[in-house]
Structures are given as C-alpha cells and as structure tokens.
C-alpha cells in the first residue's frame, strides 16, 4: 500500500518543482511505469510465451527437418518476435487511459512527447529487450546456423526499439476505441516492414558470412528517425484520443 502511494504521488510532486521539471517528470514516469509493469508480471511474460509458442508451431506445421528449418529460421524468428511485440502494444496506454492517468500526463507542464517517450522506453525494456534475449534460445530449437546468434539478439534489440516507437503511434491512435486491437495491427504492420527487412536481413547476412554492419547501421538509422519523429506523432495521437 505504502509503495503504491509513492508511485502515484511522484508525478504530482514534479509539478511543484520548477527546477529540473522535465528530468523529474521523466524519472517519475519511468519509475511509475516500471513499477506498474513489474506488478503485472503476466503482461510482461505473455509476449515471451507467445513468441515461444509461435516458434513451436512452425516445425509442427512445416517439417521437423533441421536443414529446412535452418533456412527459414531468421525470418521466422523475426516475424514471430514482431508479432509478439505487436501483441503487447494494445496495453501500452490502455490502463492509463482507463484510470485517467493519461489525462494527467496531458495536463502536466512537461511536453507530452517526452513523457510518451518515457513510456515507450519502459515498453521496450520489458518487451523488446526480453524478446531479443530469448530469441537465441529459440534459434537453437530451429537449428539456426552458428555465428548468427549474437547478430540475431542485437538486431532484435535495436529493431524492437523502432517497433515500440512506431507501434506506440498506433496504440495512441486506437486507445480511445473499444475494440482497437485488430485495427491496431492493420495500422502498424505495414509500417513495420522496413524494420523486418533489415532485421531479418542482418541475421541472413551473418549466416552467409557477409558483413552485417550495413544492416545494423540501417536499423540504427531507422531507430534514429523513429526516435526523432515518433514522439511528436504519439503526443498528437494521444491528444486526439483524449479530447475526442
């Protein structure tokens, strides 16, 4: 009880503090979201379980032949991780929308784009990063060729950050809708395609023994663009969903 009070008080306190207002508000948002997410462990675990399940379906649906699986493993792992990240997006702003704390974020004197970015950072930390760490394990199960495991994890870690940023735009646009889930995937999946191409391409290149730096550099460039532009779109979309 005591600790939950502390998390609720944190954003309010920041408003009384004119000095370093943005830093305090960012810290408070990060801390609050992390605490909330870690209390609902199921929501953190669900995408990971989904990822493992989808990967289990492919050998059953296609063939247990290791050579065949190894050939399609980079694409399978990337597509399954992408879908798992998509699955977790709907809840990104949902509970904040329902309990009214999203309105408080809008009312806060700090720029909404920065606060939205903090929420996305937490989402990546608890969805994208675990998916990236888990992918090599599933790679073993698909007999992914040796030498590509580190690239798989790295490409997913960088790529899912962009996925979280782009996906948050869709989540912010659909948060006010009762059944936004299916619509969210229609909005977001086409925008995910470049990241999928370069992410799976990096793993493929690592298997072939080509240089992977080009792919990773482009993934990084996409992340830089997304970091620069997505927060503004997220903020505008949140305003539409709240005021609408």
């Amino acid at each position, binding site marked *: 009880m005591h600790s939950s009070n502390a998390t609720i008080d944190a954003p309010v306190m920041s408003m009384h503090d004119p000095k370093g207002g943005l830093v305090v508000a960012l810290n408070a948002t990060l801390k609050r979201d992390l605490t909330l997410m870690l209390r609902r462990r199921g929501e953190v675990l669900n995408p990971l379980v989904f990822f493992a399940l989808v990967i289990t379906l492919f050998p059953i649906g296609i063939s247990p032949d290791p050579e065949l699986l190894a050939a399609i493993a980079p694409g399978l792992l990337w597509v399954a991780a992408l879908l798992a990240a998509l699955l977790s997006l709907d809840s990104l702003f949902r509970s904040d929308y329902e309990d009214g704390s999203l309105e408080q974020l809008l009312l806060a004197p700090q720029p909404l784009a920065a606060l939205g970015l903090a929420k996305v950072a937490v989402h990546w930390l608890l969805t994208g990063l675990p998916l990236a760490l888990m992918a090599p394990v599933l790679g073993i199960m698909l007999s992914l060729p040796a030498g590509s495991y580190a690239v798989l994890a790295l490409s997913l870690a960088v790529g899912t950050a962009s996925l979280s940023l782009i996906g948050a*735009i869709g989540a912010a646009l*659909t948060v006010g809708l009762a059944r936004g889930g299916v*619509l969210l995937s*229609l*909005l977001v999946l*086409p925008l995910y395609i470049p990241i999928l191409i370069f992410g799976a391409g990096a793993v493929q290149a690592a298997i072939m023994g080509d240089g992977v730096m080009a792919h990773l550099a482009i993934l990084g460039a996409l992340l830089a663009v997304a970091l620069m532009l997505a927060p503004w779109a997220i903020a505008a979309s949140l305003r539409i969903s709240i*005021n609408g």
Partner: protein
Amino acid sequence: MWAFIHKLGSPKWFYSISAKLQPWFWGAATLLLVTGTLWGLAFAPADYQQGNSFRIIYVHVPAAFLAQSIFVSMAIAGLVFMVWKIKVADMAASVMAPLGAAMTFVALFSGAVWGVPTWGTWWMWDARLTSMLILLFLYLGVIALRGAFSSRDSGSRAASVLAMVGVINIPIIKYSVDWWYTLHQPATFSITGRAAMPMEMWAPLLIMVLGFYSFFIALILMRTRSEILRREANKRWVRELVGEAR
C-alpha cells in the same frame, strides 16, 4: 494570399468555385482518356518482346502513379486540416482515401494480369507489386481508422495523423522493398530494365496519365461537393440551395 486561403477554406465558396471548375476537368478527362485509349490500344505499335500484352501499361502505369499521388495529396490535405483547421481539406482527404485504395487495387490487378504473359504467373513478389500491396494496406488502415471513431472530428484528425505518418514511411518502405528484392532475386526477367520507349508508345501513355489525373481531380471535386452538402446539411445556405425552409 491569406484572404484567398481563407476563402478556399469556406465550404460555401469552395462549393460555388468547384461548380465552375468541374465541367472543365470532366471534359479534359473524357477527351484525354478516349484519345489515349484508342491510340494506345489500337494504333501504338506492338512491343517486339511482349507483343500486344504490353498494352496493359496504358492502364497499369497511370493507376500506379495516381495511387501514390493520391496518398501524398491526402497527407497534404491532412496537414492543412491539422495546421489551419480548414474543414474543406479534411472533406477532400476523406473522399480521396477510397479512390486511392481503388487505384492501388487497379494497379495491383492489372499488374497481376500482366504477370501472366510476362512471368507466367499471376503473382510474383516483385518489388513494385509488393510496395503496391503495402500501399493498399496503408490506405485500408486510414479508411478503417477514420470509420472507427464515433466522433467525426476525432476520426478526421486521427486519419490525418496516420496519413502523415504513412507518407513519411512510403519512401522508406519503397527503398527497403527494392533493396530486399534485389537481394533475393538477382537475375530474373524484369520489366523495370526495359530500354527507353519509342515515341509512338510513350505519347499515348503520357496522354493516359494526364487523363487519369484529370479524372481524379474531377471526381474529387464532385465527391467533395457532396461531402460538403452532407456535412453542412444544417447550414442556412445549404437549406436555401436545396429549396428547403428560408
């Protein structure tokens, strides 16, 4: 300049000016499309490699051009609506989306039909077809998002934001798909690598492209006019116009 923009933003003024412009665009569209079709289908020489099947280009290329231009114009209209709160811009954007999706579908379908004589199959994951397919999904997303909101104003603003996000992504998607395709399909027959077209084939294509654009402008004017009437149905000038209550 500002007075002009302000005037253009008034639905009533737009309604009367578009009434004057509309017949010109319909006339131009009819003339260009009839000329282009006849010239392209009956008089242009057959391709030495593809024979008569290349004539599908006269529908395929203009539709593909239009599909991309409409998305850009829709995003610009969305930007105008978001920045200056000009309602006519949003009305235009709302009627552009279905037409753009239809043009994308026409481009995809004609591409698939063209694929039968050239590739021997209805569908290939060709870079251009793939980007067109993604564009179709982007259009469907914008249309679905607009329809999902119960308040029209929220739907308009959400669709505007999505159109702008989409238009930033279209070049990124296009180049990454091109890159993906060249990586996976190194040496197959490609319709992109053709030699420069002779004048007799190229001229009717240009006419068809211009015809498609005139048709698009005429149709957008017409449909924006009916959208104005629908949304402004309770305004006095509309009621007077339809001869109801004065």
